[in-house]
């Protein structure tokens, strides 16, 4: 019996900036329904790694495979078309639109209707948009301007927009940055549930150790562009090297 094909596989990824190696031979994979956390000190190469997966950066070496297909170096919008949804560290939504229109725009793009000139956009895909907003618990705010939402709600809107593309993989860059502890747990609990229901593979970076150790199935630790540890919460927390370069004593971070 062979293992099922991973949703995402990174194979010996390399990236250099002006002769400085930012990512060196990083390999890992994420399976459907799995939550994988990528952690490490500031400047360890997490963002670089992430940006090679979503198409923002072209790797200098190695491959990114989505369901077996090589997607290395494809533009972000092609990567989305192949089934990769994203949320950003600093939320990015369309401020001149309502919450519902934000989701509708994503849906129109997904259905190839972005260049339609006929009926008004706000009259299209209303039912689908409502269902997605319900899924993330934002249905009540559908008519509000995205520009005035509370931060936690913006994150949930981003999640709904990412789901509009019916993704197989969700990439979340510091999903809980700037949120209160309870909101953090709620958002990641929601993600956890969606990953299970939809069979999504989720890869996220995070600095909140409560979240990392509480939510992730598996954890990767990056340092100076290399993987220095990989495993479940207990093994990563016990790893002497990880404690030395990243976790410290844990007194100020909740990593206890």
């Amino acid at each position, binding site marked *: 019996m062979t293992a099922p094909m991973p949703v995402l596989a990174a194979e010996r990824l390399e990236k250099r900036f002006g002769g400085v190696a930012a990512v060196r031979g990083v390999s890992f994979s994420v399976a459907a329904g799995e939550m994988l956390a990528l952690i490490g000190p500031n400047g360890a190469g997490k963002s670089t790694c992430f940006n090679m997966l979503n198409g923002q950066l072209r790797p200098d070496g190695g491959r990114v495979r989505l369901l077996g297909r090589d997607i290395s170096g494809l533009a972000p919008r092609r990567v989305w078309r192949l089934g990769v949804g994203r949320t950003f560290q600093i939320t990015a939504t*369309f401020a001149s639109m309502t919450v519902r*229109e934000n989701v509708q*725009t994503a849906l129109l793009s997904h259905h190839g209707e972005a260049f339609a000139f006929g009926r008004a956009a706000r009259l299209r895909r209303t039912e689908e948009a409502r269902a997605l907003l319900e899924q993330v618990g934002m249905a009540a705010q559908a008519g509000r301007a995205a520009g005035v939402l509370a931060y936690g709600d913006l994150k949930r809107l981003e999640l709904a927009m990412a789901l509009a593309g019916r993704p197989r993989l969700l990439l979340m860059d510091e999903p809980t940055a700037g949120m209160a502890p309870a909101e953090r747990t709620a958002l990641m609990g929601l993600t956890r549930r969606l990953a299970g229901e939809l069979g999504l593979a989720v890869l996220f970076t995070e600095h909140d150790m409560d979240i990392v150790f509480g939510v992730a199935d598996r954890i990767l630790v990056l340092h100076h562009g290399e993987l220095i540890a990989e495993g479940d919460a207990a093994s990563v927390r016990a790893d002497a090297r990880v404690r030395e370069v990243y976790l410290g004593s844990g007194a100020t971070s909740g990593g206890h």
Partner: protein
Amino acid sequence: MTFVLLQLLTGLAGASALFLVSAGLTVIFGVTRVVNFSHGSLYMLGAYVAWTVLGHLPRDPGGFLLGVLATALILAAVGAVLEVALLRRIYRAPELLQLLATFGVVLMVQDAAQWIWGAEDLPLPRPPWMRGFVVLGGERFPLYDLWLIAAGPVVLGALWLLLHRTRWGTLVRAATADREMVAALGVDQRKLFTGVFALGAGLAGLGGALALPDGTANLTLDLSVITDAFVIVVVGGLGSLPGAYLASVLIGVLQAIGIVFVPKATLVLVFVVMAATLVARPHGLLGRAGATAREAEAPPLVLPAPVVLRWAGLAALLVLAAAPFAVGPFALSVLTEAMIALLFAASLHFMMGPGGMPSFGHAAWFGLGAYAAALASTALGAAFPLALLLAPLAAGLVAALFGWFVVRLSGVYLAMLTLAFAQIVWAVAFQWSGITGGDNGILSVWPPAALTDPRRFYWLVLAVCAGGAMLLRHVLYAPFGVSLRAARDSALRAEAIGLPTAKLRLLAFAIAGAAAGLAGGLSVFSKGSVFPTAASLGRSVDALLMVLLGGVQTISGPLVGALVYTGLYDALLRATDWWRLVLGAAIVALVLAFPEGIAGAAQRAWRRS
């Protein structure tokens, strides 16, 4: 060989004056984030002031040097006054309103200069020492130009030292990155800004004074210099002084050599080089991404028009349709122009507001459409409907080609590049007299007999323009328009949900170009003629004024703007010879009073009530 060398040196001499202006422009932009349209006017004032000052000083090198430095100081003082009186009040206004306010200053300075120094070109009588020359390869080269060549690098070096080796310079560079943070660290921004503006104005004045012996002080210097300076700043990279110097040399030499080999296409040559540079390096030779970034205000929510407004629109349309029965022929011709202006403004609003692509050269498309229609009907003998159809086709097609690299840029870069392109179209119309008739234009282009009745022609214009504007408005609510707005709100997010932002913007650019071209085509048949002014900077500014007066972020804005502006402009032209002064002052006053535009302010008041 010698000849090329001499042209090269001439180009380098010209480059120095260009560099002084561009350096000032770029430093002012860096710190205050204001693109100072009136920078060319400061240069022009520099030339005039130098002409007066040097006339009162001994005609020896010492006197000249003293006069030039005095001119720089006087202009620095003028700059400081300008900053305190006007710019300080609009630092928080949107970029384009700032541009517009400084354009108001351009108009006022033009009339003021004419009032003080008269309309004649003023040459500086060259004293004997200035007529000296060196012999290079058997040819004479003016000694003064050699001094000019040295002036560029000397000023560049001095500026570099000022910015990198003094505390003031460190503060200026810090403020360029984040002026609010500088203030929070205890630095008085206002003094810093006034100082920077004075420095920039002084440099412009210095440039005008130094270039005076090689030319004259005249009233066209402002716009020609500001166009060159925009090109240089874009090519060199906004905010980069070495970049500005490199680009000045490049453009200066290109102009000097181009004028010999392709005398009629110098501007085109310059433009091609600029385009090539921007394709290879979108932020200019030495510029960096992020130089144009500023604290972006969240765009307001766009809602469908309230029912009241729809009824008001319908009522307005009915009144306009019935107008010919009530007004005389003159008022009817003004109304016809207003309708054409409406479509022109709506097309600019389309790309500028929801498209997020500000243009300072929208007249390019208006002019292209006008010339296409005029040429089709005179040279090709095309029937009226065909000629009118060709106008949007030609303009849209060229816009699609030009748009290919424009849509990769944003903000101020885009505004400056469109301005430069419009200047090219204008120059071609002006210089290519074999086809376009040059300054004499193309005459006797009239609509067919069935439409010679002004009332019928007016109804046609009303149908086409109101219909066109409504169509544009419809598109903005359709998925295409919403996707376009998505790309403007957050390009990052738009790409992440699969929207091809460049393609969306390109199509929007072409649609806006075609609509402006249609307006241009109609204007030809309305006036029976076309002149290069159809593609002039003034025309572009007309459109901008209409949109900005109306408010960029409201969809009904251009309508209000077009009507108010056409009326105001017409009344002014008839009322006074000093219309520039009055118009300029009116623009400045309007920007100060309504930083969001008239319709924007009305909308805000509406929502509040």
